[in-house]
């Protein structure tokens, strides 16, 4: 990639208006040029072969074919080509998959132009660019992975119930107190025991005391 030659970008998106808009935007940027536009998945590899792009902006939804799978093949067959996923799907799972697969970036179609250009720039510099906003709050992610947090994976209602159990309330009294049915309380207690891996009430009380519930 030299300064004298333009960076060739291939656009893969079945959405014509978006594809056109993107071409216009990129062509306006100095140093970038859109070398080709592909609207169908079957045209991707011939286009790569003919146009030898430096970077591909790849949609995920390509009429039944998944863009991430295509991206995987592109970086395997053409390791020099950078691939950025550009999609409407803000799914953290898809972002994670793209990252694990070795794709270079994941951006949302409705991201600001600044973010988009920043992403392209970053990837061309040899780094990856994954829109962190898609991942959601890190605290949420921790609940999945952190075993200790998972132990405390209780809902507002369950905390209320544990608190009442700790204070020596019976199921009937808890139901009364919380204006819930006896059945609901019993189900909750079963769920709590399942989640915490406990079998006895005393263990539950110990747990409550230890965790300051």
């Amino acid at each position, binding site marked *: 990639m030299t300064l004298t030659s333009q960076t060739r970008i291939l656009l893969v998106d079945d959405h014509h208006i978006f594809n056109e*808009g993107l071409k216009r935007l990129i062509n306006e940027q100095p140093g970038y040029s859109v070398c080709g536009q592909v609207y169908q998945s079957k045209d991707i590899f011939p286009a790569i072969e003919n146009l030898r792009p430096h970077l591909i902006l790849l949609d995920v939804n390509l009429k039944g074919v998944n863009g991430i799978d295509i991206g995987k093949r592109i970086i395997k067959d053409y390791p020099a080509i950078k691939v950025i996923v550009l999609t409407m799907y803000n799914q953290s*799972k*898809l972002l994670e998959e793209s990252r694990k697969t070795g794709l270079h970036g994941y951006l949302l179609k409705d991201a600001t132009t600044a973010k988009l250009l920043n992403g392209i720039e970053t990837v061309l510099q040899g780094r990856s660019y994954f829109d962190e906003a898609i991942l959601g709050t890190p605290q*949420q992610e921790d609940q999945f992975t952190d075993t200790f947090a998972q132990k405390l994976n209780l809902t507002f209602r369950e905390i209320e119930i544990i608190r009442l159990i700790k204070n020596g309330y019976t199921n009937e009294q808890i139901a009364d107190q919380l204006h819930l049915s006896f*059945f*609901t309380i019993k*189900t909750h207690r079963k769920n709590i025991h399942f989640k915490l891996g406990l079998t006895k009430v005393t263990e539950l009380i110990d747990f409550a005391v230890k965790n300051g519930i």
Partner: protein
Amino acid sequence: MVGKNFSTSSLTGHVYLLTTAENISIDEVKRRQEDFSLLHDEIPTLGMDSRFHWIRYQVRNASPDTKNLIADIRYNELNDVCFYVLDSIDQVTYSREHFNRKTHISKKPVHSRFFSFPLRLKPGETVSVYWRLYRRESFIVVPAGLFDQEYFFTFNATYDFFLYLSLGVFTFTFLLSLLLYIFTKYRLLLLYSGYTLFYGLSIASMEGILTQYFHLNFSLLEDNTKNVFFCCLNFFVILFAVHFLEIRSFLGRKIYRLCIAQATLVLLFGVYLLLTPFTGTTSLILSAVAMFDMLLVLSLVITALLYKKRIAILYLIAMSPLFVSASWMILTIIFGVTRTAFFYQSFPFLPFFEMIVLGIGLGYKLIIDRNHYLIGLNTLQKQFTSSIVNTQDAERQRIAADLHDDLGGTLATIRRRLWDLRFKINNENLAKELDELDPLILKSSDDLRRISHNLMPPEFERIGFANSLKQFVTEIPSQPTKFQFVVSGDVQKMPLEVELNAYRIVSEMVQNIFKHANAARASVQLLYQSDFLRVVIEDDGNGDKVEKSSVLASGMGLKNSILRADYIGASLLRESGEAGTFVILDIPYRYISNDADEPNQDTAGR
């Protein structure tokens, strides 16, 4: 020879026969003693020749008391019967002439449906008994008997008791199955009621009940009464057997149609008999036809047995005594095979046995068919549910794709074009106004994404139930309700169909909370237990108030959710109270593949 304790005799080996073409008088018969020949059979069957049959036997009272006896022929199809008693010097001491099948019981010397005459013998007295029997153009069965008078009435009473009992059961069964048919429209019941009706009528006419007690005066029927009933009976016997054994299911349509044709033919023959006078030929044809029909039914039963139809065993048990008996009777008529008194007297009771066994079989079949029907209904319901669910899903998928992929891309382009425009504009105020547009576009983009995700989560199969749901729940704005999402246990992958329906149920519930519950807090939990996934959805909103105001849309959604839960074999429990709504969805991992995809051949053809 009648001894002191004599009760009854079938007179086998004592009866002599003289057949004459012309009607001769008793005096002439007396002179032709040497022309009589001995009959060897217990129940002799005489030819079909419209001739006059003279029967002769001798009775001697060997007891010290005077004996009151009854001479009897238990056959009531005769057109003319004369009875003579001659003393030892061949003088006629008692004669009764010209009785026939229609002679009323009150005009008979002995009250019996058959031909019975009194015979009073002093000690040591010997008499000769002469009968003259005549039947127009048909065979005559001669069950001649001699009874002690007392025994005769006991015997008749016992016989009649069982006969009426069995006729009563026939009547009851007929009415019951007809009534049941009216309510259930179960065709076999109708055939069974016809079966019992004509069995009853055949027996009643064979036993002379119709002519003797009811004095039916249909000139159309006359001597053919029994035969017409018999044709109707055969019609129902074939139809019943065909449907009872469900022969169409294993012998095919062709044989089924042949059987129906045969049944119809017999019925038409019955109509023919009804409209034409009695002849021996038609009577003989009917015997052959009846034999054929019986063999037909028997072969159907045996074929059904070969096809391992268990119900056929019952049929075989039911028909075997009657089959043996009736075949015997037909053989006696056509080929003159000997029959015994036991067989002769038990004949009217055999159908009773058959009816009871078939009745049991019918009840059993009704239960089985009902179960099949319920299974069929269940399958149909599943198909229906599946078609609703699938149509809805296909539609949602289409709308979601339109929104997401088309409108989403366009919105993103508009946003970018506006951004371009903004930097080309030198007018500060205009640029500012354009800046204010940007959040609006972003919001519509977010709304569009939320709506389409709600309709159909993108790449659902790839992302999976738990992650799609997590994404959906965490994307919900924290106002007015703060949602909590919890996963516990080892995440299990379930079939796509199950996961998608589960997702729809949960997202429906979550939408309801978001839109209507007015809750501050809500939670969605996925508890992956050892053999099922428990989804718990809860909020602290005003569940019961929402319930009462009954938002139509949410009610529809709930019904839909129940349908979907049922479809994937999950149980959905929902409790709504003043402290919020509590929903439990238990989805078994072992997804029972539903029959909707492969409709049961058996029920489909019904």
